[in-house]
């Protein structure tokens, strides 16, 4: 059991490295409609989907730390947001069962939008008061769609290379009522 957990930790560490590389090299340079995808958020969502709320929250916390570090943001903002994202996505899967493409799309999109909304509120409260509602149309919604679209192949890839396991009905039944 412990060995299995350690293997997962190793895989998660590998995911981090890959995420940093991909985010720095590719995704931050590919902008569609003026927005770039947030791989740390997407990975938090797919980990929550594939591993459950505990792993999702822990992964989200660490991913948020790295995110804030790389992008020179207030340390802790994205940790808080991603912890919530990872935890609630994991909880959702545990409660509602198997995951299909639409569920991934919707969960990733909603998570991305919610994460940006919270970050926008923090920015609005602490930083320069940019046109918040204009950002909804120009930044939040396009990025949510972009993240949702990218989340599907990433989830499929991670399940295929066995870093994640797709939740099945038996797991849902086992986890029913347990969050």
């Amino acid at each position, binding site marked *: 059991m412990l060995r299995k957990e350690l293997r997962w930790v190793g895989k998660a560490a590998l995911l981090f490295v890959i995420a940093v590389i991909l985010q*720095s090299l590719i995704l931050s*340079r590919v902008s569609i409609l003026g927005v770039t995808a947030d791989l740390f958020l997407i990975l938090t969502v797919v980990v929550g989907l594939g591993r459950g709320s505990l792993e999702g*929250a*822990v992964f989200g916390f660490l991913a948020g730390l790295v995110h804030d570090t790389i992008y020179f943001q207030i*340390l*802790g903002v994205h940790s808080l947001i991603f912890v919530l994202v990872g935890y609630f996505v994991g909880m959702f899967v545990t409660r509602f069962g198997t995951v299909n493409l639409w569920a991934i799309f919707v969960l990733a999109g909603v998570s991305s939008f919610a994460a940006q909304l919270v970050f926008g509120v923090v920015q609005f409260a602490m930083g320069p008061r940019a046109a918040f509602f204009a950002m909804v149309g120009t930044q939040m919604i396009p990025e949510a769609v972009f993240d949702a679209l990218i989340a599907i192949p990433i989830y499929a890839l991670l399940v295929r290379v066995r870093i994640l396991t797709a939740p099945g009905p038996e797991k849902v039944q086992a986890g029913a009522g347990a*969050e």
Partner: protein
Amino acid sequence: MPRNKVAWRRLIFVVLIIASLALLTVSVRQADSGPVHAIQQAGVSMLSPLQTWGARAAKPFQDGYTWIRTLWSAHKQAEDLAAQLQQLQGEAVKLREEAEENARLKGLLDFQEKGTFPEGTQFKVARVIAKSPTRWESWIEIDKGSADGIREDQAVVGATPNATDSLSGKGLVGKTVSVTAHSAKVQLITDVGSSVAAKIQGYRTEGIVEGSVSGQLTMNYVDRDVRVDPKLIVVTSGYGGVYPPSIPIGIVSNVGEEDVSAYKEVEVQGFVDFRVLEEVMVLIVPTTATIPSMSTTTTTPGLNTVTSGGNGVTTLPGLGLTSTTSTTSTTLSPTGR
């Protein structure tokens, strides 16, 4: 230590939330030189070589992508510019046409203002819509007709498109010969059947300007004893009832005389270039027009002057023109031509 898995999860979740909030609070409250920022800067320092290397490795691909994107946008821009150019060329042609039309109309307006026309004359600007297809006839068709007040035997004047502010390039075009509701046919003065009573300015020498198949204007019935010099201006004399007096026709270009003829043959170069006419003005002269300085006696040889019973009626035989005068005004009316 929590006993079940759910409680354990909840505990970790709460711990992570608290840790995040603590980090956030410390990060916000702490000065830039504080330990949290130092850790963050250390993390950035660790990751920056990776990012630098990544940026370097990605540059060729990025350049390629930029090149393709630029190529695509350049291609699209070229298409847009081509479409824009086509549209602008169309607009330029339209504007040029409008400018030329303006110049022509300005010429006509200038002529209307500077020319000498009978009092109360109305000017009806009309567009030339057709021209005689052969040189046997010289006429134009205009887009104004009886509905616009046009009648037969009304004088028509025009201006050459490039006419200057002076009266050169502006002059007599002809007269209306047949009229429909919305069009009229104008016989040009160059038509072989056209005759215009005219005089040479300065010398007061009178004659008849006639057209020809070649388009050349000739002033006939000019007494050979009268001196006529080239470059003198020929204007309408006002006799005949169709053409009001003093409308410029052209300038004397050549004077010829034959021993056997009693008259000089004066070649006249018309002011108006009939080949490029696009707009003309029809003169609607009031039925009783006051024409000052009109003499009832004419000295033109060959144009027999007949005054019947002192009633002031002057007839020019052979031309079918009748001029009726009173003490204050002269009324012109055609008698057959």
